[in-house]
């Protein structure tokens, strides 16, 4: 078996000659509903908020000008001033970092070394309990945030912290994931150019012990979505 790839593909092709696969269902008779498009901006926000809060996530609507103030209050309530954050240009509020620093916060966008020093850099991030990100989309039907990785966008900001604050804008609200996919024909190209993406629906959860729901197991225990009104 010198070339396992050729071996496997050859096996598949041989099997396909005899594969007794059942007939394909007729999809024209019973089509999937097209993505909803007639939800108003306030309906989208309401549905997103109700889905997220049903999962014990939190939802706030604030004027964009108060973004720094709200983030600072959330940090104070959680008794921390260090933030694992997306870089300034990736966040939907101009000048946010300066305002956060003025409020006594210490936002950090890491650049983990690719070889030496990697472990030390990760050790430095591990204790940070609060994360701050933007988002690429917010899906109303399920209360889901969509985050794509990229320059200035540490993925750990949404995953290795205990509380994750996501700042979103009304234009980022979509009724369904299908609607967002349809609105982003460049997405396949984007996903090839970036290493990762993440759909987040509420805080992390488990029911592995006696099917008892527990929130906050490895990912954040709190997901706080802040909708910024212009």
């Amino acid at each position, binding site marked *: 078996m010198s070339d396992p790839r050729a071996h496997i593909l050859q096996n598949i092709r041989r099997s396909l000659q005899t594969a007794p696969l059942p007939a394909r269902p007729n999809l024209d008779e019973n089509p999937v509903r097209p993505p909803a498009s007639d939800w108003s901006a306030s309906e989208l926000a309401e549905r997103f908020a109700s889905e997220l809060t049903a999962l014990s996530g939190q939802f706030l609507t604030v004027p964009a000008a108060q973004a720094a103030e709200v983030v600072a209050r959330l940090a104070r309530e959680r008794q921390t001033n260090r933030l694992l954050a997306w870089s300034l240009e990736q966040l939907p509020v101009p000048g946010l970092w300066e305002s956060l620093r003025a409020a006594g916060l210490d936002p950090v966008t890491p650049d983990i070394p690719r070889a030496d020093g990697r472990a030390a850099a990760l050790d430095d991030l591990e204790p940070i309990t609060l994360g701050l990100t933007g988002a690429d989309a917010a899906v109303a039907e399920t209360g889901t945030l969509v985050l794509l990785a990229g320059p200035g966008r540490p993925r750990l900001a949404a995953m290795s912290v205990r509380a994750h604050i996501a700042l979103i804008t009304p234009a980022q609200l979509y009724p369904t994931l299908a609607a967002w996919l349809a609105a982003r024909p460049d997405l396949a190209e984007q996903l090839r150019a970036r290493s990762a*993406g993440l759909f987040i629906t509420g805080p992390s959860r*488990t029911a592995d012990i006696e099917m008892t729901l527990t929130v906050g197991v490895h990912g954040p225990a709190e997901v706080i979505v802040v909708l910024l009104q212009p």
Partner: protein
Amino acid sequence: MTTSPLAFHDRIETALHNPVLQGALDRNAERRIAGRNQRFGELDDIEAVRDRGRAIRLDVLARLDEHLEHFAAQVEANGGRVHWAPTAEDARRIVLDLVRATGAAAPRVAKSKSMVSEEIHLNAALEQAGVEVVETDLGEFIIQLRGETPSHIITPAVHLRREDVSDLFHERFGMPPTRDVEAMTALAQRHLRQVYFRADVGITGVNFGVAETGTIAIVTNEGNADLSKDVPRVHIALMGLERLVPTLADLDILLRLLPRSATAQKASSYVSLVSGPRRPGEPDGPEEFHVVLVDNGRSATLGTELAEALLCIRCGACLNVCPVFREIGGHGYGAVYSGPIGSIVSPALFGAQFNELANASTLCGACRDICPVRIDIPSMLLAVRARHVRAGQPPAWLKAGLKLFALGMSVPGLYRLAQFFGGLGTRLLARQGWIRSLPPPLNAWTLRRDFPAIPAQPFRARWAQRRSNTDAGPRA
């Protein structure tokens, strides 16, 4: 390859006499089925979504070679590496070589849940080679500490009580005995956090591979897959080679079905998309990304009457709804894949010694009705039973008995004779219409259920009587 040293009947007996397990299985079945039905009811086009999901998976299988080649080319174009593993042994060797290539003297692996890794017995192989491997899904973490295998593909520790977990954490971590599930979860969370941040390699499974973009999707609720793949320098993803969808839009369709069927959620907490290692300019993420495509019998299964089982998206709904699984649980099957679909996948991938699992079915069809991609599980269970018979595994008395039966059924006089004496005999042995015990070997039946007495007036006689009565009067 079996996960238990006991024979099938002994495993069943053990499960039936375990009251804790019986309670847990009942709770699991009732809650999961009710939740799944509620979630399906919320989507007015759910039947169309199921049809579409089935069509997507059928299209993938019908051109599996092309989709695989496309997927692999895209992964490599994105900077990932694809490894083709014809057998379980190949897959273990590939993973071990990749772990060793990190150069760590005592390599550490943070591992997220993967049924393929269970299937190829990866952990044992890694541990034997001196690699420390820690399961990070809470349920998997618990059963790894106990040296067990998963008893359910979605809730692997469903067979345990909180007291069992408390005892385990007391013994292993000195935790004071508690009934507080939150406290036990918090302890595991703190412990495993150190595992992610110390690991040289993260190993995850794959729920779906998207051929269009060379992206893998990993679905979890705990976020353990994310930390396992985002923190360590190397990410290895193990993937059964049939787990593809052509496009991102197709992924969206299957993501509507999977969490609703598996855990009664509209969406799982996390769907992680990975398309390659960390790119230039990105602040974090793994430097290496490897996809191990595991065949291990799948390409051969594609050419058999069990090919449809390869549509499976591993939601576990057929386990929850199965009256047999509900009594014996995952360990009862003694195979990595349990329940109705496991009774097909296990003999398909691991061989004839698992054919007997297909006998543990009432053929009630609940699995086919609940399957999000409408896999015809009962028909394939019959196909496995047919294999079992063709392989000459049934005992001689069964063959002789069936020959006798065939003779009786084809000669009307013999049939009436058998009916007369059978009726007489069973009525003599029965109390209030039921025979409660018989001598060996007939006690194989009465040990587990009663046998009804054959009525004095056979159906044919009653039918003839009914016909003559109704013919006399007006039709209802």
